[in-house]
């Protein structure tokens, strides 16, 4: 990397930088050579960093007013909504923030899958990313429990009960998770503690994620290795910074629309009913971003196998770099993969939709087909496709296709 020989101009800067090279780090971040053909799907990394920080900051303010006790939690949330200055704004920002966070993370993940960003030499970035995603799901789930409404309580009951499927020790595990013999105050308190802890674990992993990214550098829409720095790259600052900022602002407009004009659209109305262990809601559904996994869980008739299938659906993503045998990264040059990619997208949407429907009749049948296809895509289609597929020849550099286009234009003129 070019910035190892960075020397601060001031004497104090040099003195400090010799002892802790923060200025070198900052110079590295500014100069970091980035492929210049990155499209807007690449701006979601920055957006996600914003989401994480926004969740942490709003979350800490909420924690100052929230009370984690079964008898007080619901009212304390309403106290935030009613009596805390701008409490409604902070809470709606935090609650909708989780949805926006997941929206961004799904785009980020599917961008990776389309452009093959998980492939060598970026496997570690991908795996760290998957751990972050898994922690995000756990954090979001525990956060959903905190308002202690009906959906909170029953979601906690359903999810913790999954562990009772473990043979022999299942029941002990569930009781250990609950801190008692049912979901109650002890469960709520530990979920609160972990909900506070996990975002900081995620933050640490995000730093590793970015560090790992800065070793090989960004992938790009063409998916070829780029010489750095060269005419194919631009310094991160100001070119990528301004582009990320522009995309973030557009994202924030959508975010603001939800926070100010549809703050409860993505939530479930039952969560405004205080938790009641004696009344089960008609349909227990998780938040929208967990629906595909919920559909996979329910589409397997056996409880234990269902749980295994659900975890396996995440695990196949973790080992994706080795399941996809194609050396070509970008789907732009893989005509068949591109088709399967879109089928996978449809499949995941379908799973999400089935997760929201009752698990019976046609819905269950469709969910089963979609679940099978999900695994077939990763475990059968991808390994075979990588060997059989006829790919389109790659350009030699990022500048090449651009130049070609320009030449064609001149020729036509």
């Amino acid at each position, binding site marked *: 990397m070019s910035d190892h020989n960075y020397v601060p101009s001031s004497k104090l800067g040099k003195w400090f930088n010799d002892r802790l090279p923060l200025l070198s780090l900052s110079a590295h971040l500014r100069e970091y050579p980035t492929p*210049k053909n990155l499209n807007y799907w690449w701006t979601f990394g920055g957006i996600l960093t914003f989401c994480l920080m926004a969740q942490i900051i709003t979350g800490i303010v909420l924690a100052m007013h929230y009370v984690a006790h079964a008898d007080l939690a619901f*009212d304390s949330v*309403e106290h935030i*909504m*009613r009596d805390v200055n701008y409490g*409604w*704004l902070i809470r*709606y920002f935090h609650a909708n923030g989780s949805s926006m966070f997941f929206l961004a993370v799904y785009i980020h993940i599917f961008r990776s899958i389309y452009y093959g960003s998980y492939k060598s030499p970026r496997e570690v970035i991908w795996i760290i990313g998957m751990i972050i995603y898994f922690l995000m799901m756990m954090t979001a789930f525990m956060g959903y429990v905190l308002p202690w409404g009906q959906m909170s309580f029953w979601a906690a009951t359903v999810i913790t009960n999954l562990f009772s499927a473990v043979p022999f020790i299942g029941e002990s595990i569930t009781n250990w998770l609950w801190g008692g013999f049912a979901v109650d105050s002890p469960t709520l308190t530990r979920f609160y503690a972990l909900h506070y802890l996990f975002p900081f674990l995620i933050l640490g992993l995000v730093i590793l994620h970015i560090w790992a990214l800065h070793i090989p550098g960004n992938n790009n829409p063409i998916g070829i290795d780029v010489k750095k720095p060269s005419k194919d790259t*631009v310094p991160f600052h*100001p*070119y990528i910074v*301004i*582009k990320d*900022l*522009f995309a973030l*602002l*557009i994202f*924030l*407009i959508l975010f*603001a*629309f939800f*926070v*100010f*004009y549809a*703050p*409860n659209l993505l939530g479930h*109305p*039952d969560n*405004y*009913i205080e938790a009641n262990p004696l009344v089960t809601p008609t349909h227990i559904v998780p938040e929208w971003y967990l629906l595909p996994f919920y559909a996979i869980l329910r589409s397997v008739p056996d409880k234990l196998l269902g749980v295994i299938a659900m975890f396996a659906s995440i695990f196949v993503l973790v080992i994706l770099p080795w399941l996809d045998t194609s050396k070509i990264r970008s789907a732009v040059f893989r*005509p*068949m993969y591109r*088709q399967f990619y879109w*089928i996978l997208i*449809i*499949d995941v949407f*379908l799973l999400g*939709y*089935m997760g929201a*429907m009752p698990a019976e009749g*046609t*819905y269950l049948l*469709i969910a089963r*087909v*979609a679940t099978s296809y999900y695994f077939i895509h990763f475990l059968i289609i991808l390994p075979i496709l990588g060997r059989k597929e*006829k790919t389109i020849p790659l350009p030699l550099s990022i500048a090449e296709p651009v130049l070609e286009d*320009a030449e064609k234009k001149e020729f036509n003129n």
Partner: protein
Amino acid sequence: MLKKKNLTIRMKNFFKPIFIIFIVFILTAFFSFKVFSSENENKLLSTNWSFKGFTGKFDRASLQRGYQVYTEVCASCHSMKLLSYRNLGEEGGPEFSKDQVKAIASSFEVTDGPNNDGEMFTRPAKPSDNFVKPYQNVQEATVSNGGAYPPDMSVLVKARSSGADYIYSLLLGYDDPPSNIQLDDGVYYNTYMPGNKIMMPNPLSEDLIEYNDGTKATNEQMAKDVVTFLAWAAEPHLEARHRIGFKAIIYLIILTLLAYFSMKRLWSRIEPKV
């Protein structure tokens, strides 16, 4: 070249059926959902709510009338434990004057204490007190109402899907049961209640109350007013939210445009054409 083209065409032919299968799946799912939902739900009644839309505000007079409906009709069974009398005078709510709020509060009795003698005593409520509950606890409320707990109404509008329309419809949805449905004593037929059976007798009737401002108390009027009041109770900062949101989004749009032009300017150094 020719061979390559043939291959792509063959691939396309191979994938077409898969696509068609998926589209059929989605259509089936969508269609069955439509059938499923239209079977179970009547279309809810609605009215022109003043608080909907980007600049929606509560109709002050309607909120004040709605409070009257609540205290004179609903409050005998339904609590609103999350509200205090002071809320009635706050900005964005019914905005009763300070004196009115004090007068309203003092018309209720609350238990306070213990005093220096260690005894509980009753006193007139102050604006800082929570709304007085009709029953001591859930159990008492349940047993006094034939086994059906009248839910607390503080956040009721948010606790039902399309809350305002739903409660409005429910209040106007009482009807004679169809001949094939037998109702037990204390159970009533309501078009909009899930399952059509409701334990709450029809709470509204023409001219049930006499509005302080002289508005004629039709069923529709009372239902609209009380739902407006409940919508405010569930979301007391709705007006501030709409006001701030409008400004925030305009601010963001302007900032986005500025960022866009800065970006174009900066990138023109790299790619003059783009």
